């Protein structure tokens, strides 16, 4: 089973605990500038949105890498091997989402590797805005909400529409 980070921006309060957890695990210090997940503040729209690598099945970063420093593990996670990375930054250009970034203090690129199976950001999130779920069921919560609305609409719109309850 592949698992993915599922982000529900509606639940995010902008507290950045995810960034703190990520930077602590990856850098051994609290440093949001080095976090692989970032929270963006759309101030005038009252929205806070965490964003990170989605682990593309066909990853452009991986295909662009000239030294094969990005590999795929058994869970489908794309991992940068620091010992191979030459810091050319081609992957940062190839990634359509901007989630691979150059770390000037090491001369290598950094990206989310899902903490190799137990992402610290999801663990740290106090509101459930970031969860780690089965990839194939990641949309089910949203489906359930829409299903409920569809059911309501059906019940309210037509008295002559038969429902499961008769």
């Amino acid at each position, binding site marked *: 089973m592949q698992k993915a980070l599922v982000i529900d921006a509606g639940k995010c*309060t902008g*507290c950045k605990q995810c960034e703190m957890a990520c930077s602590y695990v990856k*850098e051994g*210090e*609290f440093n949001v*500038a080095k976090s692989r997940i970032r929270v963006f503040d759309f101030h005038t729209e009252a*929205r806070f949105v965490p964003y990170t690598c989605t682990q593309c099945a066909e990853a452009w970063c991986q295909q662009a890498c000239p030294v094969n420093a990005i590999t795929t593990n058994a869970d489908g996670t794309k991992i940068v091997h620091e010992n191979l990375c030459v810091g050319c930054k081609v992957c940062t250009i190839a990634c359509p989402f901007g989630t691979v970034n150059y770390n000037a203090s090491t001369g290598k690129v950094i990206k989310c590797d899902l903490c190799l199976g137990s992402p610290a950001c999801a663990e740290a999130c106090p509101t459930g805005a970031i969860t780690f779920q089965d990839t194939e069921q990641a949309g089910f919560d949203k489906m359930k909400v829409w299903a409920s609305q569809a059911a309501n609409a059906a019940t309210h719109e037509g008295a002559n529409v038969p429902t499961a309850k008769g």
Partner: protein
Amino acid sequence: MGWHGKILRINLTDGTIKTEPLNMDWAQKYLGQRGLATKYLVEEINPKVDPLSPENKMIMATGPLTGTAASTGGRYSVITKGALTNAIACSNSGGYFGAELKFAGWDMIIFEGKSPKPVYLTVFDDKVELHDAADIWGKSVWDADEYIKKRHQDPMMHISAIGVAGENQVLYSCIVNDLHRAAGRSGVGAVMGSKNLKAVALRGTKGVKVKDGMRFLKATAAGKKVLQENAVTGQGLPSFGTQVLMNVINEAGAMPTRNHRQVQFEGAHDISAEAMVEPRKTDGHPNLLTNQACFGCTIACGRISKIDENHFSIQNKPQYMHASGGLEYEAAWALGCNTGVDDLEALTMVNFVCNEQGLDPISFGATVSAAMELYDLGLITKETTGGIDLKFGSAEALVKCVELTGKAEGFGKELGLGSLRLCQKYGRPELSMSVKGQEFPAYDSRGIQGMGLTYATSNRGACHLRSYTVSSEILGIPEKTDPLVTDGKPALVKAFQDATAAVDSSGLCVFTTFAWTLNDIAPQIDAACEGEWTPERLLEMGERIWNMERVFNNKAGFTAKDDNLPPRLTSEPAESGPAKGLVNGLEKMLPEYYELRGWTAEGVPTNETLSRLDIA
């Protein structure tokens, strides 16, 4: 660890920028933020200095837990001699600015002197520069924020700035960071304005390390669990913000109304948290869009609101038509109950302007209500107000007042003096609801007796955040006491004052203390910082900080006479509610308080007290 051990010293007079090591001996005695920066200030300035002169200094200080994963670990404070009060000032703010200062590698910034022309400071890690602020002098906090990010091509900067109010040295102007968080009280914005310093913009890429990482993560996780499971911090504050108090305090008969003439406001429900989440009758949308956390905060009490686009207060004013920082309890009370205005949209607009122009909504609202009383008594007229019909309850008048005060125009110049100087000017100083020149916050001390002693003895003038005995007297935290009696309150106030001074020195938010005691906080500090930090040591440190502030104020000229309340609260009984017939019994509490503090009957710390607390 926790601390970087480095501070920046900016001399604005000659533009020199120096770095120096943090005094780690002092850090062991005063921890950080409020305590440590106050120590620097009292060592470096003459207590009698004019707060608006170049001889005053202004310190922006973080705590050792600022910029860590501790819940609420994002606070910073501005420490200076207050423009409004002439007393020690320490104004605390959340948002993301404090954490960014740590990420840039600094524990605090000390500003000295006065720049010959308006400037702003940028700090990008070790690159620290002053820039000409001619383009933004005269602009709002919001415009300055946008300008600086554009000019330096860095949307990730976090910025603290003053608005026009601070530039014009409105005596209760504040310093606003991240657009709508503020170091709000005592006129710290006026001090910044007097130094010709418009803004401080930060960007950091360095990390904050702690002493024992595994133990720190364990201690902070345990703390977060306590906050989550507590009814106030886990449910009340995230859902309703501090506004959860509006109906509670009104029912307790402790809601100052119309400049404290009454203690219950008939319109309280209309401006309460509950009203903020109800769909408006006019457009079907609620006032509140979402809650927001400050850096690292797992409570998330911040309010993000959007005003009804058809409301009279924002017509042809597009800058107020988008979402921004909404009403918290103090602002809703000061702008609403205290002026008799029950129009939620108008209050939200006035709150937006306070953020945009850098005004403390508590002192602004309380000054408008004092002016409304003067108007009601015929002591000021439409001629004085420039045509504003300054009646209690008038949303139109309130909206006009905030626009004039923010820009320091017309009658706004008089409102910018604060309530004490305004009421003195019109011959009725007793109508200023203030202590040491600073206006009361949202709790009437006839209905919550301990708050009378809190206000009278607060080192920064009337303030609820120096010892929030409301927790005990109304909410029963940590244990319930009777709000209507004075018995036991001196000890309660002292305990809250000392514990709060410790929390304010750590980098954590005082709102955690709805759920946390020092027993929850000490393990987090202990795992992060060198030294052994026990609850007992923190409490003693809080007492040391309190006495250090007191000594400064005494040297500045304050005496026991200034530990006082306006006569309205000690001689005009409450008219309704549970406290009906009561006045505040300050005279019963004060002598016992001095004794518990180890002070003379004149309110001066004895030599024994000072040496016990190791205050030089």
